[in-house]
């Protein structure tokens, strides 16, 4: 299995931006299809399974069906196939929907891969290298650390509500219970952030203008070449789109 986590975050970010910008700029269904295929291949090569993409794929299919309906009702590309009162269906709605689906898939799955494969601390270091003050850059790993903590807090609040007769099993029930769950959740969040900020300050956070890292990021020659190649590929694509 390839350890993509070891790659410099700047390479991964460049690749992610390449995917997003290409999907936005390109009008080619084939190119978007190829990009999606690349994402899937990378996932298999690095994770040896597509398990991580399962939930996002289901959500994308739901979004895709919505794109299809919108294009069916409002799409005006191609020739008119059917018309009745306000409803007009044109032949181009399927290709427009597929294109929209591919774009959204490439953008979201590319971003998910970047977020999952890049250590939050590496992102912080990357931001520091771009001269973002470390007090702000460190917010990325701190958020990543407390996200699962807050999810667990929410789950325990839901458990306590459901034993008091407030059902919290389905999505609708969760939405209905949200106002009641928010108050204790906010209170817990405030308490945690208070404790955490005192704890980090007492461990010297903010004492100097810079801080060191136990695993500093360093870009090697191959990673530099990889970034260069991605940029060249993107510029070529733009030139191809503009001039041909």
């Amino acid at each position, binding site marked *: 299995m390839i350890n993509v986590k070891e790659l410099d975050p700047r390479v991964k970010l460049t690749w992610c931006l390449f995917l997003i910008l290409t999907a936005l700029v390109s009008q080619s269904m084939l190119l978007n299809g190829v990009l999606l295929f690349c994402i899937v291949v990378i996932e298999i090569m690095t994770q040896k399974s597509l398990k991580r993409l399962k939930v996002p794929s289901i959500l994308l299919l739901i979004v895709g069906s919505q794109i299809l309906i919108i294009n069916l009702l409002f799409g005006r590309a191609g020739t008119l196939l059917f018309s009745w009162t306000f409803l007009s269906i044109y032949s181009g709605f399927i290709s427009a929907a597929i294109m929209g689906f591919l774009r959204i898939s490439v953008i979201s799955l590319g971003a998910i891969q970047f977020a999952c494969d890049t250590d939050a601390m590496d992102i912080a270091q990357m931001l520091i290298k771009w001269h973002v003050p470390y007090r702000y850059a460190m917010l990325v*790993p701190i958020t990543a650390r407390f996200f*699962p903590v807050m999810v667990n807090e929410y789950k325990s609040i839901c*458990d306590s509500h459901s*034993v008091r007769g407030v059902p919290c099993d389905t999505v609708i029930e969760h939405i209905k219970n949200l106002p009641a769950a928010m*108050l204790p959740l906010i209170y817990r969040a405030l308490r945690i952030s208070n404790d955490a900020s005192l704890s980090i300050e*007492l461990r*010297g*956070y903010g004492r100097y203008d810079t*801080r060191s890292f*136990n695993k500093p990021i360093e870009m090697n020659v191959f990673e530099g070449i990889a970034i260069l190649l991605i940029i060249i590929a993107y510029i070529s694509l733009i030139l191809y789109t503009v001039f041909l």
Partner: protein
Amino acid sequence: MEPMISIDIKALIFPEEKEAALKNIKLDIKKGDFIAVTGGAASGKSLLLHTITSAAPKFYPCAIDGTVKVADRNVAEIPLCEMADYVGYMMQEPQNQMISRTVYDELAFGVANMNLSHGEIESRVKKIMSFLSIDDFAHRYTDALSGGQAQKVVLGSILTLKSPVLLLDQPTAELDPKTSSELYRHLARINREKNVTTMVVMDKSKEVLKYANRVVVMENGTMKECLTVDDYQNKYRTDVRIKNNLPIRVDRETDIVRLNGASHLYKGGIVGCRKIHFTLKKGDFTAVIGQNGSGKSTMLKLIEGLLKPTEGTVELFGTQITKKNISQLRRRTGFLFQNPDDQIFCSSIKEEIGYVLKGKACEEEEKNRKIQDTLEFVGLKGWDEEHPQRLSRGQRQLLALGSVIINEPELIIADEPTSGLDEIQSRLVLEKLATLSAQGITILLVTHDLSEAKYFANRIVVMNQHELILDFKADEIDEYTEALVKIELLEGEVV
């Protein structure tokens, strides 16, 4: 010789408060001292530590008339972010203090803030990992650690800073006896070998007294006295845990809970509990004891229907729990969580207590009467319109109990309700449970504290490594001493 810590506070007042939160405290602590701080709720124990870290007034704005010196420097003159050179501070909930995703990063956090080289960071972190024997989980995620492991990691992240003073605020309040004594042993070693001045706010556990050389007793914001451990033990010998003298009437014919070989596996095949055979009779006051992670909470969640058994069945009031009947069965039970803040969500105490009555077909007058009766029972009468967060943690636990009992449950499941409470607050909660038990309500109490189980329950069930291994009458506990020592629920403690 100059003292390591010198406290001379005439008054510490929070804005918009008339009363001083701390007053007339004069205390000198020598290098290498191991001080235990004790006192009732809101007596100023934690605040005393915050004056040493200088978090009060720098983090918690307040006015201090007096001085606090550490290593002969007035802490008021030291910025908070430089205090790590003088003191290391650790609080009760380790998960709130860890800000890195992995254990290694967490241990390196403080030293990295000191701008040390990569080599120096690695060397310090490795030394501390080896000292605390946590090398095995260096690359684990911090949110996946048990309470004891998390406390060790927090302690490690402070030790890497090499501060000459360690301040700990109830570090073992939520830990089981085994983990708690392990942590205290580490603290004693640090104090002895590294000559680190240590100050610990004591929780219910008396373990710290084995290692402390002085005890500071706080009362209403003042230092009542500073005693040697022997003097303290002689003076405060009385155990505030009074035996439950109320009758427990058990109906041997009626089963309230029955677990038939129930097991639960969490995601990824992690065992929650294994093949539990357990019956709870009507009127029983049963205590479930076991180490952290022994499967106690999983068992409770199976009984409450919050988890489904992956094997075996769970019956409540003679009916097997299914998705269809779970809400009906839950109306007959009450669940008291370890953290009262999980179940408190209304903006006034009255509203909180009366929450379950909403939508119930009964007169408004009747509802009000029930609310007032419940408030009186839990000792919160007259506080109706106050916000729940104005109460102390012990009072919030009583409020949570009130919000449960107003529904007149036949079974109350209490998951470590005294965790994080001091002895007096714990006793209040347990006495209420005992009163309810005397009224015929079946109680299932999960606790780490063997004496709570012994003095309040009529039956004790012991969980170890996800299995139910012992089930005996509470007054027969002495016969099981050896077995309890073997699974480290007792450690040289005389029960």
